[in-house]
């Protein structure tokens, strides 16, 4: 399952995470976000234990989305050791997302 992220828990859950984190920046009015949501959920289950997957609602969490300059959603950002590793904008093909995950996890 994905973790629900917000302005309060972002540091603890993402920046201080021991495992790499994939954050899906989304909003409920965003059509492409809803289109990729099932794939993101599957990914969270498939990589459980190796990759943390979190969702951050940009409307409810302006501080975090502002900090990372989110102006198009969905935006996917990969974090490792508190740093941004990679960033992808738009409804990604699941295969492309998994290719990036593979690189990050060295699989």
């Amino acid at each position: 399952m994905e973790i629900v992220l917000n302005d309060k828990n972002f540091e603890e859950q993402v920046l201080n995470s021991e495992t790499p984190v994939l954050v899906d920046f989304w909003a409920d009015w965003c059509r492409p976000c809803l289109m990729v949501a099932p794939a993101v959920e599957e990914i969270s289950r498939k990589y459980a234990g190796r990759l943390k997957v979190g969702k951050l609602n940009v409307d409810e969490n302006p501080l975090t989305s502002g900090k990372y300059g989110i102006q198009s959603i969905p935006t996917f950002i990969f974090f490792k050791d508190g740093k941004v590793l990679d960033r992808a904008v738009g409804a990604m093909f699941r295969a492309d997302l998994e290719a990036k995950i593979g690189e990050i996890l060295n699989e």
Partner: protein
Amino acid sequence: MSKYDIIIIGGGPAGLTAGLYTARSKMKTLLLEKVAPGGQAALAWAIENYPGFPEGIDGPELMERIRRQAEKYELEIRVGEVVKVELSSEDERSKRKVERIINTRGEEYKTVALIVATGTRPKKLGVTGEERLIGRGVSYCATCDGPLFKNRKVVVVGGGDAAVEEALFLSRFAEKTTLIHRRDELRATKIMRERAASNPKLEFMSKSVVTEVLGETEVEGVKVRNVETGKDLTLEAKGVFVHIGNIPNTAFLKGIVEMDEEGFIVTNENMETSVSGIYACGDVRKKLLRQVVTACGEGATAGVAAGQYVQKWKYKKEI
């Protein structure tokens, strides 16, 4: 390798309707979709000209209904982007041609007939700054990103129905929306032009083209040139929404089926391409009108035509 009677590439209204028809007539059908079923129609907030819905219907809802209807007849839908189509000639004796498909995850499928319904994607401006600032203020979908520009200044580039529609949508959120278009008058249909003209939050900049998107880490504005006077000016904006037309998703079929100079697939009235057994329907076809209603009609025709081809192939063993 999995074998099918019919493989459909693309899960928009054309592909889903084709699948509804073929699955309902008991053809073993697989639909491959690269993101999720629905196509570009699933991004539309209201489809006002699809018959049978006088109040209009939400894009995702209409697409969800068509998908459910197709799945009721056991259409198999899988996610995967097709990168290559090969015409195999391994069955030389009977002169049967079998198309083979390979998708990104290295999976291979075989099929007797193929229906291409891959649609189009937005055309880019091709100016400095555009590529670098995608997701940083440059967008091709107002209904996706519009609400993020609440009380900001935005520009929309383009003069057709799509551009006007997106500008009207953006004007609900943005402080100011400026529509920049090349011609003297908007290309959009009368109903859209009237809606645009009566919207007090919309401004127009005619006879103008965007020559650069400005900003380092996010969009700060655009450089605009007046095509008549040649004069340049800078317009402040946080968002640049580009709606200058679409290009077909047909790169993987180059050299296989006949296309026009822009890459749209040429078919006959039965949706058959220059290669027998390969059909095309929906926005990806060379044609006059690209709407959900035409996509569905063509999908039905392609589904039936492909079904007849499969029947001939199976029972008469000749094509």
